[in-house]
């Protein structure tokens, strides 16, 4: 009986597929094992990996990133136009959009949302990325006009950021109590830090999607227990798998490991405001002392490639000539800079949360010892690390990583420009580099931008405020019952085409 039923389902799916008349729903309930559960529900200020993965099912923005080309494409927006001078963006919304509570989604909601992100009081994650925006106004119910202070080609990528660029209802209630978005799934409820239930939104703008009837996020803090839950069929998908457990998933029957190129690159960063790291020769010496091949091998357990810039999985290629691994040259540079018996401590961010960084730090400490630097790799609890490095800037060096963003601007401007909100290396860019970083934001031609960022990153490689180390392998795991799942370099869960099969 069961067999007949599934045969029928298969035949039906084929028929629908052939005519293109695929309908919403019928795809079952997908259970996703996650580490944390919802901590902060406001999409504009959320920052935790788990939160973003949940909220991106509920909220949508004007644009989204195409999982294949990584280029921004319309989501709530049907189309958009940029004026000749690049100063006015006109966005046209799809017709008949509604929020989960049934109210219509119109241009005024978009204006409200973008202004909410720009408002300093909100503390939105994307606020600084919308800094070039001068005004946002509704021309009519379906048209939004965004006026810029200067050309800003990155805006499309910014507006395509999941969750952080979400459209929220202007007349919405308390977003923190009950999220209301326009995405493919509606928030049903949660047991705090235990499970989150979502169900299919019938009025999603795509009449054929989503295929799933419901999505349930099951919180399992312990990773071994999370993998066991997948192996025993209690969950169907894991939104992250650590390197040590990847092999176990690969070997298990009925489940597969999904390896993808992530946008996550780890780096060794130095406090360029503090001697001797204010001397470029010392930074270059350290960069050349580090054996990136060995670091990448140890940190990613052989699964990740060496990185020479912080930009990975980008829609815009960035090419540089890296500094060679050359301990002899490193010693010579240190001697030239008059640095002897250099001794300092450095710590990976996140406490013990990112074992790849801890493994990288061990190799780096060994590499630096080989050129006469006594670099002690210590572990600081995440909060302490943040206090010292980000808030007080009272540190010598660290190991950390950049996770999000497929546009090179997102991996560069915030960290190394004069206006960089995350420039906790205290790096002072030359006029040339600053100009490149500004031009890169204005330019819209991908080929020109590729040249600009290649040039900018060559300067950053030579100045070495940070030493990019390796691309952190993106790993998820899914049951063989899951069909149509896709992810992106930002580890988004693209669930609109997913359904469960037997």
């Amino acid at each position: 009986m069961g067999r007949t039923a599934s045969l029928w389902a298969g035949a039906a799916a084929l028929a629908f597929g052939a005519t293109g008349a695929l309908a919403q729903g019928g795809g079952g309930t997908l259970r996703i094992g996650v580490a944390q559960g919802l901590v902060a529900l406001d999409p504009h200020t959320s920052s935790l990996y788990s939160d973003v993965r949940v909220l991106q099912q509920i909220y949508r923005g004007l644009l989204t990133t195409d999982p294949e080309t990584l280029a921004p494409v319309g989501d709530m927006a049907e189309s958009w136009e940029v004026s000749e001078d690049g100063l006015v963006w006109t966005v046209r919304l799809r017709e008949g959009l509604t929020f989960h509570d049934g109210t219509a989604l119109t241009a005024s909601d978009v204006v409200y949302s973008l202004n909410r992100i720009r408002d300093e009081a909100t503390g939105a994650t994307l606020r600084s990325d919308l800094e070039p925006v001068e005004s946002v106004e509704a021309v009519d119910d379906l048209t939004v006009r965004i006026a810029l202070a200067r050309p800003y080609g990155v805006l499309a990528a910014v507006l395509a950021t999941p969750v952080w660029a979400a459209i929220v209802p202007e007349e919405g209630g308390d977003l923190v109590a009950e999220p209301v978005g326009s995405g493919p799934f509606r928030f049903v409820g949660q047991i705090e830090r235990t499970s989150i239930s979502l169900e299919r939104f019938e009025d999603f703008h795509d009449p054929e999607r989503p295929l799933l009837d419901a999505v349930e996020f099951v919180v399992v803090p312990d990773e071994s227990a999370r993998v066991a839950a997948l192996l025993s069929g209690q969950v169907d998908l894991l939104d992250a798998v650590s390197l040590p457990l990847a092999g176990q998933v690969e070997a298990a029957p009925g489940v597969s490991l999904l390896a993808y190129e992530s946008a996550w690159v780890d780096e060794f960063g130095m406090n360029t405001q503090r001697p001797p790291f204010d001397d470029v020769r010392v930074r270059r010496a350290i960069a050349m002392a580090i054996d990136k091949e060995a670091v990448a091998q140890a940190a990613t357990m052989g699964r990740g490639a060496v990185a020479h810039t912080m930009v990975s999985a980008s829609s815009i290629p960035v090419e540089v000539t890296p500094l060679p691994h050359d301990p002899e040259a490193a010693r010579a540079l240190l001697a030239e800079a008059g640095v002897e018996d250099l001794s300092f401590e450095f710590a990976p961010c996140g406490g013990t949360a990112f074992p790849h960084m801890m493994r990288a730090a061990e190799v780096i400490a060994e590499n630096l010892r080989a050129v006469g630097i006594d670099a002690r790799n210590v572990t600081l609890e995440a909060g302490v690390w943040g206090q010292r490095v980000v808030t007080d800037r009272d540190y010598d060096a660290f190991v950390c990583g950049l996770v999000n963003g497929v546009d090179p601007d997102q991996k560069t401007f915030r960290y190394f420009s004069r206006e960089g909100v995350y420039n906790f290396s205290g790096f002072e860019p030359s006029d040339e580099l600053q100009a490149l970083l500004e031009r890169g934001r204005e330019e819209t031609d991908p080929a020109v931008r590729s040249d600009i960022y290649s040039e900018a990153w060559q300067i950053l490689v030579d100045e070495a405020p940070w030493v990019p180390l390796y691309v952190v392998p993106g790993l998820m795991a899914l049951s063989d019952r899951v069909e149509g799942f896709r992810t992106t370099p930002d580890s988004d869960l693209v669930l609109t085409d997913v359904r469960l099969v037997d």
Partner: protein
Amino acid sequence: MLRFLFWRLLGAAVLILAVSVLAFALVRFLPGGPAQAALGLRASPAEVERLNAALGLDRPVAVQYAEWLGRALRLDFGTSLSGGARAGTPVADLIARGLAVTVPLALLGTAIAVAVGLPLGLAAAARAGRGTDRAVSAAAVVALSLPPFYLGYLLILVFAVRLGWLPSVGYVSPAADPAGFLRIILLPALTIGIINAAPVARTARAAAVEVAAGEPVRLARLAGAPPGVVWFKHVLRGAMVPVVTVVGLQVGFLMGGVIVVENMFALPGLGRQMLIAAEQRDYPTLQAVIVVFAAAFVLVNLLVDLLYAAIDPRIRPEGG
């Protein structure tokens, strides 16, 4: 008896008070703080200072403690300082939700520990020095040396992954689905129970061997009482006092196990509340959970002392 109770309760109160002072100071030694945790790493020092002032965290610790104590005596533990979804939730609610999971888990775990440990210990005593005794002792050593997370994972692998009999994730509240709740806490309770069965078995064995060699049992045997009666009437009763003591003392250990096991099996109990509060630097919640754990330990041991009198009428608690 009443005098005894009075002094013991007073002692318990002083002890809990001391723990609360220590906890208050310790949680504030944690670097960071709730403002930093809520605002994230991007927050400027000025923003952090502003929020700290708004939360009253810029005042002297002694003043903060006095205020906390005043409220806590009326069972008002303040509101959670975590950002996001739980911002402003009364701590008492978080504690109540946590207890609704942790108390059944601890009780079931203890029941399993006694149900497994006591018969094994008595069986070992009855065959002291023989094969059964050695096997029980060896098993106890193994169980005692198993870290809870390891045993928990082993049970998941066997009962959830291999056999598929019991769930290892998917909490449901006891109010919504009592049977489902029992199923989901069975593996975690078993984890706690097996580990705690070891000291129970060892204590029961030692006590039973001692009692069995004692005068009353010898007399009973000489008087021709059947072995069953001897064991149940004399040996079991005599062995109960040390067993109850060890169960009481195990409560402290049990709580450590509860934190690990709740994390392993994703149960929203008090142990997880504590971890979340620590991670978010949620001072009021962390403080309250520590005090609740301390109070549970002190009160269970008080209960144990009272139980002695019930089990063995020769023990007459006296005050002073």
